[in-house]
């Protein structure tokens, strides 16, 4: 997908299997020869339906899922089978924002503890950590008195801001956002996406945005990769993929998402019916 050496993250021929419970049961392969790359400061969207393997891909880059074969290169360095110690060092480079802001923040810790945790793990403590926490809250648009509260006191959108602040704490160069807004209300979604774009423009961080929602991908991503059953079926610039999809699956996905204009939606419905009919004829 790109020239060797220039990419911040490069995934080559990645295969991931889940072992089934029980001895000598065949493993379930969820990713087949997946390759992609992300440039510095770029947002790549990974779109697909449930079970397409998009979340597994994100988790394997984070080292939360073991890789069966293939390579993951970060800034040219092979991190496919990084050991715990190397992984801990990578915390300064690759971070994550999860889908569910309710379970991604430990309910029994204060926001200041949640935010200072990565800093302390990196050896930053005391006054410097407190200063950074204030700065982080400010950067995600939260009041500084939020630090002495518990996650339960915040709404979903605010919690997602806290999760974004935690991801930013070590100033990583890549953040993996796994369905960053799908648990949020409509009016909050747009604001959290704006925040992500704003942070990217200010810090030059690269983003991998995993989503089932094409409209989310459309709003924040420079490039898009469409996943289906563990494979990337189409990729390219966002405009190209969304306006001129080449694969039938991408077209189907695009037409299936309903739009809020009733007349336009009626046309899309017709187009989808025609596509389905032409498929069944074939």
């Amino acid at each position: 997908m790109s020239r060797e050496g220039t990419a911040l993250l490069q995934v080559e021929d990645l295969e991931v299997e889940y072992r089934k419970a029980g001895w000598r049961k065949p493993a379930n392969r969820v990713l087949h020869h997946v390759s992609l790359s992300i440039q510095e400061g770029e947002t790549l969207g990974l779109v697909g339906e449930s079970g397409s393997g998009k979340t597994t891909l994100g988790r394997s880059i984070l080292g939360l899922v073991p890789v069966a074969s293939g390579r993951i290169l970060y800034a040219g360095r092979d991190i496919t089978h990084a050991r715990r110690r190397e992984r801990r060092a990578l915390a300064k480079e690759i971070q994550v924002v999860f889908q569910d802001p309710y379970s991604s923040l430990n309910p029994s810790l204060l926001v200041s503890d949640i935010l200072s945790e990565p800093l302390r793990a990196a050896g930053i403590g005391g006054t410097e950590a407190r200063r950074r926490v204030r700065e982080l809250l400010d950067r995600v648009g939260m009041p500084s008195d939020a630090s002495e509260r518990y996650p339960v006191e915040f709404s979903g959108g605010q919690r997602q801001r806290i999760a974004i602040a935690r991801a930013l704490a070590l100033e990583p160069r890549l953040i993996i956002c796994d369905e960053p807004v799908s648990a949020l209300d409509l009016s909050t979604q747009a604001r959290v996406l704006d925040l992500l774009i704003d942070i990217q423009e200010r810090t030059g961080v690269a983003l991998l945005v995993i989503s089932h929602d094409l409209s989310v991908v459309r709003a924040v991503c420079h490039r898009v990769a469409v996943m289906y059953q563990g494979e990337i079926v189409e990729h390219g610039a966002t405009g190209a993929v969304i306006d001129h999809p080449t694969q039938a699956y991408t077209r189907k996905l695009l037409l299936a998402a309903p739009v809020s204009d009733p007349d336009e939606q009626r046309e899309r419905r017709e187009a989808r019916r025609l596509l389905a009919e032409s498929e069944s004829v074939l």
Partner: protein
Amino acid sequence: MSGELGLVVAPELPTFIRQGTLRRLARKPTVWISAVILSTVLFFSFFGAILTPFDPNLTKLAMVNIGPFQSEYLLGGDRAGRDILSRLMFATANTIGGAAIAVSVAVAIGVTVGLMAGYYGRTFDAIGAWLSNLIQAVPGMIVLIAVFVVVGPSTVTSMIVVGILIAPAYFRLVRNVVISVRNELYVDAARVSGLSDIRIMSRHIFVVIRAPIIIEMAYIAGIALVIQAALEFIGLGSPESPTWGGMLQDSFNALYISPFAILWPALSIILTVLAFVFLSNAVRDTLGDPRSSGGTARKAIAHAVTPPGAAELGEPNAFLSVRELSIAYPLSKEKSRTVVRKVGLQVNRGEVLGLVGESGSGKTQTAFAILGLLPPEAIVTSGRIVFDGLPLLELTEKRLNQLRGREIAYVPQEPMSNLDPAFTVGQQFGFAMRKKLGLSRVESRERALSLLARVNIKEPERVYDYYPHQLSGGMAQRVLIAIAVSCDPKLLIADEPTTALDVTVQAEVLDLLRDLQQERSMALILVTHNFGVVADICERVAVMKDGEIVETGETRAIMKRPEHPYTRLLLDSVLDNVPMRAPLTSRDGVRA
């Protein structure tokens, strides 16, 4: 970017919970009686040896087997003429100390191995489980007797062995809690943040297992006490250090001469063990059910349904009309929270109404009120719901049950959790149709098969015999829709019927709902947060915010010319209307 920044003060703040838990605990008589007993016992285990009125080993021939309250030996004398009260006080330290040793050993081994097994899984888990099963399979008493024979009489050694024998209880408790926490996203986030395993365990996991460990501790202490007393009673104690169990054995031997002597050690053991068990249970109950004592609030607020006026019955052709509906939930005896405020709705025969709003807007509560399925704590403070001429809020539960399924049907959000995993698809069809329509087994099967075919399920005969876990999410939702329409309802209420589904499946389910609705000219109320879904299927839409309907009207008009600022805000937030992100230029790519 400011609307969501005002802090939301949720009703359940953690500090509130903590204070509330202590206060609720103190309100239970078993708790403070247990606390008094245990603190007395603890006091004597520290100071009993100093406070004894007589030397516990002093023997007076005159006092041999003397009864209680007859001499300066208040509780009487034992076989050797020693003061029972003094010995009881003196023995407290050994008894409680022994139990403490057993509990500490059990916690140290059980928690450590449980943490490792739960956190690392696989090999650790297999070894831990194997050891735990092994220990449980070994007959404890025989091990203890063997230890006594080899090591000789020693309270410390035997209590360490007891601790090892109890450890599996902790192992299983901790392992199960850790496994449930290990998969929490915040543990993943901590790993990505570069925390070491030890730090993750101590910060994120220990916090969660702390409470169950402490609760279990009281219970285990009670068990340890009983085992210790039993050991001493069968003579496996050390004669140098008196314990309650040892005293029990001593007085048992003189039971016919001095029947009261056995009462005091027995009472001490029983009361202490009961106090441990009751305290442990009370703490567990209070922590497990935070609202266990809040059930009385409901009666304090009057059940005030507005009496029907002739003019209020709605337009004659309105098939369903909801008027001035308000629903509240009691928070305490005085206060309540209103979640639906004076909501008015109308649905005509064969019409599709969208009820749209964000989470907490009261849309689901409104739908549940129409179905008569509000939770028992909810109170309808005002309003009237008329369906096909029937005042729904005033009907008996029995009459409502006849209506539900037959006249008004429901399609839920989570298809999987709304099918009973113990019955096949066919059986679940049968429940509804045989009861509501009085069909025979054969007739209901025929009808179910044709309905399954109607909702585009391939091979209906096979799916008829499937259990819910064999269905995909989309198939499960089709089955639920087929069951919902099986009795030809006149009104179908679908609560976020496609939210849990993928977009391509969502489109198919919406097509299905639209076709069924038109075929049968059913009225349909679709509760959703998705404006695309509204645009796709609804003729009219009502927008809800904070329990009120802010705007209602024909879908096209509202989508194209929203009047209320909140509707405009929502529509502006729809991401379809956000401009597409431009491709990355080389200038953007350079790190600032």
